[in-house]
Structures are given as C-alpha cells and as structure tokens.
C-alpha cells in the first residue's frame, strides 16, 4: 500500500520497469526439459533463426568475392574472407563521377539526423505535454488532424511541401530538410508524448501549479526529468526514421547534403555490368549500422519506454 506513491510519483518509468525487475507476469519457471520449455524455446529459436537469416546472409555475402558469390550458395560461409567489398562500399564505389562510396554521405547523415532528431523531439514533446496538461478549446481537433496525418503517404505530400518550402525560401537548405523531418515525425511522436504525459499523475502537475510553476517551469523542471524512457523511445524512432530516410533527403536537399541512403541507393542502383552483391551488402550493413548500434545499446530502454508511453491510452 505504501508503495503506491512510488508508482504514482516516480512515474510510469518504474511502473514499466517493474516488469523486468520482478520478472514477467507469466507463470513460475519449471524444470528445464519440460514439454512446455521445449515448445517455448523451440519456437523462439526458430523465430530467431528466421529473423537472423537475412543478417547472416548480408554479412556472409559481404565477405565473399564476386566469383564465389556466383558459384556458391548464399548460406555457405565465405571460403576466403575478403574485406575488399567493405572498403569499396565505404570509400570507392562510384556514383557518376564521385567515387568515394558511402563515406561522403556519412557526415551529411549525421548533420541531418542530429538536429532533426533533437528539434523534432523537442517540439513533439512540448506539444504532447500541452495536449496532456494544458488543453485549450479546439486543441483536440488539431491533434486529430495530426494523427490522421500519420496515415498520409509521404508521396502525396511532396508537392505541397515543395511549395511551402519554396515560399519560405528554405527549399534545398538543411533547415528545410530538418523542418520536413520534424513535420513528419510529429504525429507519432506527439501521440507517444501525449500518452506518456497523460499517464503521469495529474496531481503532480496540479501541485506544481499551486507551487507557482508555469508552463515552461513545469515542463523543464518537473516533466522532463521524469521522462527519460519516452525520450529514449522517441530518439530511437527518430534516429531510425531519419537516418534511413531516402525520399526527403534526395527531394528536399541538394547533392552537397545528400545523406548516406542516397549514396546507398546510388551504389546499389549504379550497376557496372553485374551487380556487385558483396559491395551492395557491405554498403547496406554500413548504412544500417548507426540505427542498429542505437538499438543494441538502448533496446532495453526502448521496451521500457514503449511500455510507459504507447500502452497507456
């Protein structure tokens, strides 16, 4: 009973994590070789194999030479490991006249992703906070439109956005692209933040108001420090989305800002005679590396944050 306050005030963070702390809510463990365990681990292992095969094939292929790929079986390990495709994908593959591989896009991707992630999360979190705690008339309507916006295919919106950016005079600039990422990240992120902030005890917010804290003070001094898990979720979603984006990166910027995915597209689509599958696979892994690392590092926080933000209606 006394613990209820911890759950309430320490926020959904601990509520969610209590799952992983005190173990799942399922049944108690049983002997290792029970039928149940065999079915359980068997299924999970089979599923894991299905999920891992593509990664395995990618890695193995990227380490083979082209003749070996042509002759062999995609699942067989490389006879002779070569890192040539990786070098080529990173530094030598050509697009038109530029033969510096993915490396030229890497810095651009960082340059696009970092500010886009920060700005989009900041804006979405403030919106979510306003939606959860500072409602005003009509606000829900805007939010409904925003959520419906999550369903609009990006392709449909390209032309109107070209016009908006042109009118703002920021077409082709980095800030233009950052704005575009912020706009399209907004629906899902705002939804997540709104749900998360709504799941925090409302009395905390009221107490802060009685204490004289206003909109920004409550946001920065009360809400932000309590919201690590949901920020991690938002960060992961945005880093993944923005880093992997191809369409906006290529449509709304100019070549000097092209992200890594544009280089990836160029490498896999610039066929010089035969498709160099090994280089393609190496390039693919290299491009996916940043979001993959983010996942491996913060996967646990991701689940915790999801539990805190997405699940509460």
């Amino acid at each position, binding site marked *: 009973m006394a613990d209820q306050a911890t759950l309430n005030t320490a926020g959904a963070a601990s509520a969610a994590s209590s799952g992983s702390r005190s173990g799942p809510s399922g049944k108690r463990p049983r002997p290792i070789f029970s039928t149940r365990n065999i079915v359980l681990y068997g299924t999970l292992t089979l599923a*894991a194999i299905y999920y891992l095969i593509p990664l395995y094939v990618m890695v193995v292929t990227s380490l083979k030479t082209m003749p070996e790929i042509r002759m062999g079986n995609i699942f067989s390990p490389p006879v002779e490991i070569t890192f040539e495709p990786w070098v080529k994908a990173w530094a030598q593959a050509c697009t038109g006249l530029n033969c510096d591989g993915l490396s030229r896009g890497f810095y651009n991707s960082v340059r696009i992703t970092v500010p886009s992630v920060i700005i989009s999360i900041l804006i979405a979190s403030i*919106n979510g906070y306003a939606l959860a705690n500072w409602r005003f008339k009509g606000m829900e309507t805007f939010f409904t439109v925003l959520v419906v916006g999550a369903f*609009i295919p990006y392709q449909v919106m390209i032309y109107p956005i070209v016009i908006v950016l042109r009118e703002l005079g920021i077409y082709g600039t980095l800030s233009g692209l950052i704005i575009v990422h912020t706009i399209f990240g907004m629906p899902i992120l705002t939804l997540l933040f709104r749900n998360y902030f709504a799941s925090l005890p409302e009395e905390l917010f009221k107490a802060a108001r009685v204490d004289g804290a206003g909109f920004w003070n409550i946001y920065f001094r009360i809400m932000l420090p309590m919201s690590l898990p949901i920020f991690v979720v938002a960060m992961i979603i945005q880093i993944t989305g923005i880093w*992997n984006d191809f*369409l906006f990166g290529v449509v709304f910027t100019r070549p000097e800002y092209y992200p890594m995915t544009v280089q990836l597209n160029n490498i*896999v689509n610039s066929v010089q005679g035969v498709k160099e599958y090994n280089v*393609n696979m190496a390039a*693919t892994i290299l491009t996916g590396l940043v979001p993959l690392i983010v996942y491996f590092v913060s996967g646990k926080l991701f689940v915790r944050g999801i539990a805190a933000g997405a699940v509460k*209606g």
Partner: protein
Amino acid sequence: MTDYQVARRPNTLFRNLNSKIASIPMIVTAMVVFLGGTVWTVFYSFTNSKLLPRTTFVGFDQYERLWASERWIVSIQNLAIFGVFALIFSFVIGFVLAAFMDQKIRLENVFRTIFLYPFALSFIVTGLVWQWLLNPDFGVQHVVRSLGWVGFTFNPLYTQSIVIYGILIAALWQGTGLVMVLMLAGLRGIDEDIWKASRVDGIPMVKTYLLIIIPMMRPVFITTLVIVASGIVKVYDLVVAQTSGGPGIASEVPAKYVYDYMFQAQNLGQGFAASTMMLITISIIIIPWAYLEFGGKKRG
C-alpha cells in the same frame, strides 16, 4: 441580482497563452501541411495539371480515368491483400512471440534484440535483402534445388500471382519485432493478480489470453494498430526496392501509383486524384475513430 463585483472572464485568447504558443508548431503542421496540403491536393485533382499545377478544371475526368485504370485497381487489390495479411500476421506473430517472451524465459534480452533489430533497417535495405534472398538464381530456390530438390519452385518475386506475398514476407520480417515489443509492454502492464485469479479459477492459459488478457490490452492494440496501419497505407519503398511493382503491374500499390503518375508521368492531376482517393479512404476510416479516441475525452 448579484451583490458582489463580478470579475469578467479574461479574454479567452490569452488564457493558457503559453500552451497556445507551444502548440503553434502542431497547429501549423496540422492545418497548413496536413489539412492545407490535403485541400490543395483535392483542389488540383479536378484540374488537368501536368508537370506543374495549373487551374484548368476538368471536373471528374481524372477520377474516371483513375477508376478505369487497371493498374489502379490492381494497386488497391494489392493493398487490401497486403493490408489484411500484414495486420493479421503481424498481430498474431507479434502477440505469440510476446506471450512466449513473457514466460520468464532465459536470454530474454537476446531474443528481444534479435526480433527487434530488423526494425532499425530501412525498407530499402529490407527490400534489397529479401530481393536477394528470394532471387530464384541465388536465393532460397537455388539453394534448395542444389540440395537435390530439383523440382523445388519458390520464386515469388517473379511470379505474378504470389508476388505480393513475397513483399509481405519482407514486411513482416521488418515489422513484427516492433509489434512484439508493443505487445510485450502491454502484457507487462497487466496486473499480476489477474494471472493469479485465472489460475485459481483453473482457466487454461490459452483461454486466459484469449478471453481475459487480450480484451484488457485494448490501448496497446490501438496504438499498435495506428502504427502498423499507417505503415501499411504508406507502403512504397519496400515495393520499389523489391520488385518495382513488377512483374508487370502485379505488385503495384496506391502510393506508388501516386508517385509514378505525379512525377514520372508528369500528370499531377492524375496523381492528385489517386491521392485524394487514398485520403478519402483514410479519412473515412480514421477520423471517426480518432475523434472518439482523442477528441472530447476529459480527464479527472
């Protein structure tokens, strides 16, 4: 009659001013970009705009042409098939994996990471990998045949009738991990007493899931539905990367129709008409639900 001084309600415009200022990005995005862009799109769908938007109205011509187009019909059918199967499979697989993960298993972190990592990869990458895996000359078919199973045929990407399932396989590979995580989070949020109660009552585990747990997870299902469904409607990159809509037009999807006609065919009017049809369909399904879910709901 009141015998006290009445304080007038302050100008409502300035009430809660900070919140309004803070919501400007959301309002602008919702109104200018999403709503404005939609209205703009609908408006120009009644014109014969080609490469550039122009206001020569042609009534419903674009729509007539759209619905006479075999490719559009195929696109819609594909989206329907893809959508239904993607929803069913991702929910079923995601839930089953989550339920298994929730059994106090060892190596939970390892399994979770394995199921989730594809989500970190873009659709382009997913499409490429699966195009490669399903390629009849290198991939699964080739491997099985070289194991001595000569008659084995599994060539979805170059077979019209099943190409959409080839795309489905890749989509599920990429997306079920996230569904699993969402479901797992939902399962972890279920009160442990529920499990105790169902055990005391002797309800079998599967029944407990079906009759008790799943109905309790409504909010999770809704969030998941939003995320999965919005992904389905938008499916484009995966198709482009895997099949480019082929063979023929067998794996075309509406978003690709929009893009191709807007930019490749330089027929904005036609692209906008297709966009409008998509937007209308989305609106009919989503708006009433979204309004119920998010509108007018009060706390406290």
